């Protein structure tokens, strides 16, 4: 039988008809749809036993408690710990995404060396031994007793056990200097302590009992201090009698989150905080609104003695005079001063913006002076003393190398710089560190988890474990009124190739042959921490909060140091008992430094006063701003794209804001591109019009770039901080700029 083409057609036709009577087409249509619902490349969550663990966040020095929801051992969600004595149940957005950090694409997972390849900077793998050898050699070349040839460890979270280890190490090497960054929010407190004739010990802000805060640019509601603390105060506002509610006045050029939330926003000319503070002091003194008793008894430079006393300085800053500089109406200055006096106890806080940089020492002196005038030291609702965390090896027992702020380090003096991985969360321009390095041949080593930020400038990188991968201790936050201590536990195993800084310092010491052989050698970091916990236990002070049940018990009820260790390593928190009120020593309202009268006088004219003509020539004042946590050199969760890239809630690097009228006058367009040009260089930015921006000011974000979330780039190739003018005192708040399209 011959099969013709026609037969074939018939057969195929029959099959086609038949197919509809089989499940083939129907099942395939359904399966195709189901396939699209279960694409293999869509990740599936892990499934397993749900466990709750607790730990302490170490992403900034705030030390918030974190409840960790785990699938098996894998953390999948972080939330605040209700009733946690430090963080009050709160986690900031950066902390909420902390469990993503181990998987950040920008991680460094092996020792790296900065090399130049075809004119481009790259990081090539290197052995850990090679790094140690290079450092040991450099250490051996340091000549003892030459202060302009130092080895520095930069620690942005001082007070930890590892901080102590660093200081021990630096003590053992020639010219060792232990350096911290200026702690935003803590600056006023530091300056205040310097103004005391005798050491007063650590202090904190008694925010819970204060009735008013006058803040000079401190981001009170945007990640300042321990974020949860301020938030708790806001939370409680509603239930309070309106007369006793906390009143916040924000003195800031920018309408920051705090400024828009505050009861009053005092929009001040850039860099003129000192004038405003001295103007307030003038009103307080002239209207006799200050604590006359205290000042009479304790102030050593209040009387007009040699014409360089505080009163002489303040005399000059009449409301009208201060108004001329700060741009705030005389009436407003007077009213603010009166409000301050009426709402006692009040606190005046300095600090500044985490991206905009710290206020200068002079501004902080003027601000601290206000606190003293108001008599707000050592009394509830003011600035109160706290005790140190018990430590057998505290500085009083074992003198070690001094702690120094980076701005106090002489220029061109650092030969070897070791960057610790821990972050303050605030901006730190590389230019500032660079200025401190010897001009040639400085060696920079970074103990960092990520190949980003300052680390990108390091010659060597030793990868450190990141959050949740190692056990760490968390000391009291800078603003706290009582000391506290908690632990962050290693919920995850750190990847191979990562080295705990403690271990690394030990190895380095042994390679370099430095006599760093005390109890640390041969010990583990965990043992060191246990040792510290034991010290706390033995001091028998304070209470312990247990995260598991949310209960707080006196330390006396804890059966042993081991049990305290167990509670702390399960996210517990030790809280010191309140310190007794200490008698205040005499103080100088101008501070200790000899030439402070002149310096304050100059500072009172405003930071841009020195070359007034230039302002007009440049046209704009560039003010960087940032958000603590995202302006630092560490990493934030890739999910932060929600706040930056995907909503515009926070500005990305390269985004700026100008006043619409100024913008139009300079030919800029909303949403358009423009060049910012300063003495340091130029950068292309995106301009947004915002009626809240002061005319002639361009606000530029110090934030992550779009790439920062998916690659090793944190802040793009260019950072607005590179354009900022660094003052002699290492402030970078205001810079003259030209803005062109």
């Amino acid at each position, binding site marked *: 039988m011959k099969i013709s083409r026609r037969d074939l057609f018939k057969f*195929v036709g029959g099959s086609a008809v038949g197919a509809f009577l089989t499940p083939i087409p129907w099942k395939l249509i359904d399966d195709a749809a189901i396939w699209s619902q279960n694409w293999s490349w869509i990740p599936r969550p892990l499934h397993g036993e749900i466990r709750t663990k607790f730990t302490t966040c170490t992403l900034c020095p705030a030390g918030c408690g974190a409840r960790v929801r785990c699938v098996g051992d894998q953390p999948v969600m972080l939330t605040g710990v209700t009733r946690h004595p430090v963080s009050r149940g709160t986690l900031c957005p950066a902390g909420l995404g902390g469990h993503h950090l181990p998987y950040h694409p920008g991680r460094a997972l092996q020792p790296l060396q900065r090399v130049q390849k075809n004119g481009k900077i790259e990081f090539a793998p290197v052995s850990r031994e090679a790094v140690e050898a290079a450092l040991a050699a450099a250490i051996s070349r340091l000549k003892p007793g030459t202060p302009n040839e130092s080895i520095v460890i930069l620690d942005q979270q001082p007070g930890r056990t590892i901080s102590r280890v660093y200081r021990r190490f630096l003590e053992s090497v020639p010219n060792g200097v232990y350096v911290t960054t200026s702690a935003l929010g803590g600056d006023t407190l530091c300056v205040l302590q310097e103004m005391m004739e005798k050491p007063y010990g650590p202090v904190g802000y008694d925010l819970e009992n204060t009735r008013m805060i006058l803040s000079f640019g401190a981001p009170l509601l945007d990640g300042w201090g321990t974020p949860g603390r301020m938030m708790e105060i806001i939370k409680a506002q509603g239930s309070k009698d309106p007369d006793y509610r906390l009143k916040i006045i924000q003195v800031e050029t920018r309408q920051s989150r705090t400024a828009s939330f505050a009861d009053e926003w005092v929009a001040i000319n850039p860099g003129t905080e000192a004038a405003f503070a001295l103007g307030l002091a003038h009103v307080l003194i002239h209207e006799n609104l200050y604590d006359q008793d205290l000042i009479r008894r304790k102030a050593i430079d209040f009387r007009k003695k040699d014409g360089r006393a505080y009163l002489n300085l303040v005399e000059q800053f009449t409301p009208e005079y201060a108004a001329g500089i700060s741009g705030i109406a005389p009436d407003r200055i007077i009213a603010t001063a009166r409000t301050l006096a009426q709402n006692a106890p009040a606190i005046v806080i300095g600090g500044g913006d985490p991206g905009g940089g710290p206020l200068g020492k002079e501004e902080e002196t003027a601000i601290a002076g206000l606190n003293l005038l108001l008599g707000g030291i050592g009394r509830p609702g003011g600035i109160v003393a706290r005790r140190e965390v018990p430590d057998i090896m505290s500085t009083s027992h074992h003198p070690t190398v001094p702690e120094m702020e980076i701005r106090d380090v002489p220029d061109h003096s650092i030969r070897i710089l070791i960057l610790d991985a821990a972050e303050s969360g605030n901006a730190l321009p590389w230019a500032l560190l660079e200025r401190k390095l010897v001009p040639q041949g400085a060696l920079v080593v970074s103990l960092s988890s990520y190949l980003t930020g300052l680390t990108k400038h390091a010659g060597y990188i030793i990868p450190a474990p990141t959050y949740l991968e190692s056990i760490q201790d968390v000391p009291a936050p800078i603003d706290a009124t009582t000391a506290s201590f908690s632990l962050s536990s290693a919920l995850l195993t750190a990847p191979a190739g990562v080295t705990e800084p403690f271990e690394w310092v030990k190895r380095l010491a042994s390679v370099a042959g430095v006599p760093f052989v005390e109890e640390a050698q041969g010990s583990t970091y965990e043992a060191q921490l246990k040792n510290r916990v034991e010290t706390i236990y033995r001091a028998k002070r304070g209470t312990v909060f247990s995260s598991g049940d949310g209960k707080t018990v006196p330390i006396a009820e804890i059966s042993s140091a081991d049990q305290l260790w167990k509670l702390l390593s399960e996210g517990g928190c030790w809280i010191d008992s309140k310190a007794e009120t200490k008698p205040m020593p005499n103080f100088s309202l101008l501070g200790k430094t000899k030439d402070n009268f002149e310096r304050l006088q100059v500072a009172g004219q405003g930071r841009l006063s020195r070359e007034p003509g230039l302002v007009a020539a440049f046209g704009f004042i560039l003010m960087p701003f940032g958000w603590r946590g995202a302006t630092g050199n560490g990493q934030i969760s890739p999910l932060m794209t929600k706040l930056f890239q995907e909503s515009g809630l926070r500005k990305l690097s390269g985004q700026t804001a100008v006043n619409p009228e100024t913008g139009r006058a300079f030919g800029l367009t909303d949403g358009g591109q423009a060049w910012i040009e300063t003495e340091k260089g130029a950068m292309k930015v995106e301009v947004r019009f915002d009626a809240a921006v002061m005319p002639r000011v361009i606000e530029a974000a110090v934030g992550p770039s779009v790439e920062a979330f998916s690659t090793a780039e944190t802040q793009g190739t260019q950072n607005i901080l590179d354009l900022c003018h660094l003052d002699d005192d290492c402030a970078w708040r205001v810079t003259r700029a030209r803005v062109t399209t």
Partner: protein
Amino acid sequence: MVVKNRGRLIFLAGVLVMLVVGWFGFPRMLYQKTNQPIQFSHRVHTGDKAGLTCEDCHSFQADGRFNGIPSISKCGGCHVGLLGNSPDEKVLVEKYVATNTEIPWLVYSRQPENAYFSHVQHVRLAKIQCERCHGPHGAGDTLRPYESDRLTSYSRDIWGHSLSRIHSEVWDGKKMDNCASCHEQRGVSNSCLLCHK
């Protein structure tokens, strides 16, 4: 030879061939069979010998989460050493219990990621017997090979054994329609969110 109605016969042959391919060949092509890592007799465990109930092994957590197939520690609770002489038990003890390794069971009734099923609500509140959905699984002596759809990677139990979805047994088929019709019969809401996550 000239056959009368030759064209018609050829057409019918096409239909017939397709019917055979579609109903018998197609399922074989579509589903991939995998044997379970070891054989397990539910009957031995639930019968007189061990006398366990379903919930003894397939238990709930305090917050109502269903534990599903018990972890190896549960097996290890009894099978510290060999209790019988089955070769599969030997594998269990040596390969899994001894090394504390979870057995990679293939779950017949595994629902896709987007489906939420609360055992506790069905078992505790609605008092539905396990057999209503799982059939006489708990009475079996062996574990049949696991069949998964090559396209969707779904277990065959979801569509049900019969490709026509005309099922002789009430538990055969665990597609959304099956859930929905039971909900409808019992007057329970068929809201999307009830079962989708």
